[in-house]
């Protein structure tokens, strides 16, 4: 980045937008139109050749289109993509969450609602009796993941299709968040906590 002297900033609007005058060549319109048509024809011919080659089983490594044919062909998602949430599990299968309420507190859309409960094991302080995320209100900011002190909630499921036919089923409960968690390319269910938390 160049250093900008903000005290002596002169904006010359006259010259900042350059109006390109058309010469005679552009004004007779046809040459430029033909140039444009040649460009699109080039794309047409190239893609058409690839498509026809595909019919005969040739040129399999070339694509005739840059688009993804979505339900059959999925776009690769980055591994840090913020997808649908999941609740992590302890090695014994119970939830890792300690019901500290930090995520509920930080959530800007207030879509997390936790009911904490005493844990049967006296060595553990609390656990959530219920943990619900109203995914319709979630804005996928990821603050809950950042806030969680024990890496109990993550958004690394790689799940992006969170549509549903029924609004009531868009409120995810604890069981759903803990079981239905495997999206394509997602890390395993009981991925160990991040190293600094261990």
């Amino acid at each position, binding site marked *: 980045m160049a250093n900008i002297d903000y005290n002596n900033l002169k904006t010359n609007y006259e010259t900042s937008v350059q109006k390109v005058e058309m010469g005679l060549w552009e004004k007779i319109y046809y040459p430029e*139109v033909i140039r*444009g*048509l040649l460009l*699109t024809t080039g*794309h*047409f011919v190239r893609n058409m050749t690839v498509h026809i080659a595909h019919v005969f089983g040739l040129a399999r490594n070339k694509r*005739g*289109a840059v688009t993804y*044919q979505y339900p059959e062909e999925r776009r690769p998602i980055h591994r840090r993509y913020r997808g649908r949430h999941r609740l992590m599990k302890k090695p014994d299968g119970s939830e890792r969450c300690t019901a500290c309420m930090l995520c509920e507190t930080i959530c800007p859309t207030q879509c997390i609602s936790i009911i904490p409960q005493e844990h049967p094991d006296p060595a553990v302080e609390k656990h959530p009796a219920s943990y619900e995320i109203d995914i319709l209100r979630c804005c996928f900011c990821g603050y809950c993941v950042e806030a969680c002190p024990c890496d109990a909630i993550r958004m690394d499921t790689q799940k992006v299709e969170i549509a549903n036919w029924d609004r009531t089923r868009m409120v995810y409960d604890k069981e759903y968040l803990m079981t239905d968690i495997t999206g394509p390319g997602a890390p395993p269910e009981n991925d160990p906590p991040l190293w600094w938390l261990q």
Partner: protein
Amino acid sequence: MLQTAIILAKIWGVLLTLVSLAAIMTWVERKQSAVMQDRLGANRADVLGLRIIGLFQPMADGLKMFFKEDFVPARGDKFLHTLAPMIAFFPALLTFAVIPFGDVLRIGTLEIPLQIANLNIGYLFILAFGGLTIYGTVLAGWSSNNKYSLLGGLRAGAQMISYEVVLGLSLVGLIMVFGTLQLDIMVKKQGELLFGFLPAWGIFLQPLGFLLFLPSAIAETKRVPFDLPEGESEIIGYYTEYSGMRFGLFYFAEFIEIIVLSAIMATLFFGGYQIPWLYAEGFQFPWGWEWNLPHLLVVILQIGSFFAKIAFFCWLQVLIRWTLPRFRYDQLMRLCWVNILPLAVLNIVLTGLVLMILN
């Protein structure tokens, strides 16, 4: 009796061909634009799991149109609102009646001209019915009782009437060269040779005329880059208040117009059904080769060449439509009155001079 049957068969055949071609054109437009833009285009409509590269899409579209609500604005003019799409649709179909799609077919002693109506004013017929479609668009805008539709209709009217002028003028040179308004004679004359080798197609006799005719004709069909009357998304056009099959008729008329325009271009400028150096007896190449062909084969070849030309111009029109951005309205009008009109007049003067010198 036999004559009537033949004429009815011809009308039926042309009508079926045109309508099915128009349906296929909707598919071609989708697919071609997709391939040009590195996409695949509509390929989801399937019947029993069969997709055949989206060919069911036109049927799905038609079905959808039929089941949409047929809406007439509450204070609109119901009669005109219904009439307008028809006026837009039928002249486009009718134009094809005067276009010869093949030479005379001889079966025994029977001579069947492959043209529905051989009018001696065929060329004026095309212009006249082209002019009628303006009523469709203007009435559609007016009867909708919607100010945006009305403005769209006005835009359409102004644009089409202006371009009608240059459309007619750009073709005057052609009439001077061929000395006739009858389309089948025009096509026959295009079967002759220039300088002994070049086919005497309109494009070689009237290159400037063609360059002026093409934009005017595209402006008449109201397609990009001249689609201001519709202005689908932003300026809102004359068929805003149309839904269901009434809208479908406008949509369909557009594709019929593409085909008819291609046919007109092929007929006037690209030799109609003529194939270079193919005569009634067979091929006679300028370098002396001859290749005699049976009559039926010649006729089939000619019809085939006519439809190949139509296909090419349909392709070209879709290519233009998906390449160029839209004109601004003042640019559109300036192009018509300031650029094309004087050139068209110049073309007439030049043609007259050349004809005078040659005679």
